[in-house]
């Protein structure tokens, strides 16, 4: 049963259990429509995207061989940043969701894909696909709510450490890939006790992350910088070439980190997004699960290019309802999903990126301090829910 955290206004008080199941059926119908046409167009799209990304990356890295020349450094860094963003967002995230598993191409498959990110795909799939997407916005179950370091909902308990959360959030944005790797490892929890620290499973996962980070760092900060040394020698500045390329990689990684962090903050933290209590999801129906995804996510409005650069996570609502449909289809179904929100008088949270990022940051700042008035006790009677079978 879906029970919302007590808010000033309960956004689903007007829905009957039958309404909620009907919403589920209508969303299933939208899903079926996409499944019916999913095919060659989607396969072509992702292959083209991968091709564009790889060419852009090779091209940018080639330009960065001349990193001693400032225009080449600027151009190469810009290209590499965009390539890394595409690789993580429109390609990596979506492939790892199994959105393209239908193609049965072992090269583009959620079980084989590895991405240009510190967090190993396997561990990320567990914490993201299996936990976050199932327990979306359930306080105490969905660790994406504040990533275990922040307080992003009034119902989360305040502690003095939260005073620093704007700073933690900024640091997390810059080092996002490492933040996610630590998050997937549940580092805070697993380092807390000796027993957990010595758990062989945890140690194996730790080693896996260590290997991944080592390879990523050797690639970006040693191998590619070394490749630009010969050109640097020709210009009489080998050190400038090495450190120039290294700096370009640092900048590209940080740009990608801040960008993806911002997009992800927009997904669940802006004003108007609902959270749910832990007990509310026992025996949850498909309709109720859908409803939780609808109310627990927020979109970003913008151009087609913006949607691609966010990996279509700008359609977070559609993504959360249908995490395994090809992301490039979200824009197509968004009007239908939105119409459904209107039909059932629900709030479709969306706005331009700047507004949504600001809204999410405002929350991070506001909740760094204790609630102005004490959080109300959770009222289990609201909204009134009667299981369908009991009502019949």
């Amino acid at each position, binding site marked *: 049963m879906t029970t919302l955290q007590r808010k000033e206004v309960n956004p689903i008080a007007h829905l009957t259990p039958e309404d909620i199941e009907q919403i589920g059926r209508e969303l299933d119908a939208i*899903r079926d429509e996409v499944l019916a046409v999913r095919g060659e167009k989607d396969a072509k799209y992702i292959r083209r995207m991968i091709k564009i990304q*790889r060419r852009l990356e090779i091209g940018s890295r080639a330009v960065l061989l001349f990193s001693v020349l400032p225009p080449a450094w600027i151009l190469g860094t810009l290209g590499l940043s965009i390539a890394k963003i595409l690789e993580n967002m429109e390609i990596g995230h979506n492939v790892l969701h199994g959105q393209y598993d239908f193609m049965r191409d072992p090269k583009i498959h959620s079980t084989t894909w590895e*991405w240009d990110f510190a967090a190993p795909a396997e561990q990320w*799939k567990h914490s993201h*696909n299996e936990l976050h997407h199932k327990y979306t916005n359930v306080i105490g179950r969905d660790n994406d709510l504040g990533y275990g370091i922040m307080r992003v909902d009034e119902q989360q308990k305040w502690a003095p450490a939260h005073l620093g959360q704007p700073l933690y959030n900024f640091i997390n944005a810059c080092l996002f890939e490492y933040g996610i790797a630590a998050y997937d490892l549940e580092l805070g929890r697993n380092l807390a006790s000796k027993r957990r620290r010595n758990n062989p499973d945890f140690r194996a996962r730790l080693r896996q992350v260590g290997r991944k980070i080592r*390879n*990523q760092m050797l690639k970006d900060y040693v191998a590619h910088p070394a490749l630009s040394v010969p050109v640097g020698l020709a210009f009489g500045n080998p050190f400038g070439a090495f450190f120039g390329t290294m700096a370009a990689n640092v900048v590209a990684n940080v740009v990608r980190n801040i960008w993806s962090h911002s997009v992800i903050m927009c997904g669940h933290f802006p004003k108007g997004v609902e959270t749910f209590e832990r007990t509310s999801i026992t025996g949850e129906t498909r309709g109720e699960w859908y409803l939780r995804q609808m109310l627990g996510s927020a979109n970003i409005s913008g151009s087609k290019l913006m949607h691609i650069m966010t990996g279509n996570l700008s359609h977070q609502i559609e993504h959360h309802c249908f995490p395994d449909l090809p992301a490039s289809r979200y824009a197509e179904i968004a009007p239908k999903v939105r119409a459904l929100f209107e039909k059932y008088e629900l709030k479709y949270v969306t706005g331009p990126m700047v507004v949504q990022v600001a809204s999410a940051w405002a929350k991070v700042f506001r909740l760094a301090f204790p609630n102005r008035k004490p959080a109300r006790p959770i009222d289990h009677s609201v909204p009134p829910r009667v299981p369908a079978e009991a009502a019949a």
Partner: protein
Amino acid sequence: MAVTRNLRDGAWRVVELITTPVVPADYLDVIAPLRNPTVLRARIDAVRPETGKAVTLELRPGRGWQPHQPGQYVRLGVDVDGVRLWRAYSVSSAAGRSDGKFTVTVNAVENGTVSSYLLKNARKGMLVHLDLPAGDFLLPEQRPAKSLFLTAGSGITPVMGMLRSALHELDDVVVLHSARTAEDVVFGAELRDLAAKGRIRLIERHTRADGRLKPADVADLVPDLFERETWACGPGELLDGLQEHWADAGAADRLHIERFRPTVLIAGDGGTVTFEKSGQVVEAPGATSILEAGEAAGQLMPSGCRMGICYKCVLPMREGIVRDMRDGTITTASEVDGDKILIQTCISAAAGPCRLDA
């Protein structure tokens, strides 16, 4: 040379580091898809219609290919509406061509997704995925003095590959081929030409006029039947009949058969699920997911969200048919095509017998 090998390995590791987390070949694929040493592909170099319902594809295999032996088949992976489907096709060209190419001949199969796609869409320049040649439908090193090739319909393709490769080493050859009409005989002109030159004795049987070929008919058409080493390929029914006939005559070891699609899968409700590695066999009802049915029987199953969104529970299905419990989508896998289709066990219910590689 250990030193050069070490140098080469070291250099390769650097290249791998440069491209991590993907492998160097993934970048190579962007420019030269046939050069990939780990993913075998072929380019279609020519498309030649045989009959109205059969087409020969001339394929240029990429790096990593190993030449076939006459009679073997290859599996082709073709992207049909974005989905890679694998089918086995016999090699119809002679072995050991100097240009390194080979041909397969695709016959239209009723309701055949891949064959009808290829018949309609195969074009010069198209890429297909490829597996190494396989199959033990082969001529022995010691060529037999007298041989019989008994084929029906598309069953002629592996035999054509054998004849084109080794006819010059075979003396007394009878080809008994059954097709609907004279026009439907694939490679008809070439076979008749060989017969006219006296290289083979060709017996054509046209089922529309003469009825279906029965094992008992063969003895009338080829009196010295059991003196011959026989290779047969065609529909399952015919092959079953031939096996029985040869076994009754005590000549089972002289009959070599090649089966194409043995089973037609029809979606039903529930089925027996076999976990091949553990040996566990489970009766799974149509309304229970394979995950739950397996767990209930004590099979160790990977699982995650249990609602079809996280893809952690996927297992390879080698043969069988399942239904997606959310939207009714049917997925099939066929052992003959070497399938290992990954299915989400948490939302898939058996729709017939299934064998999983788990």
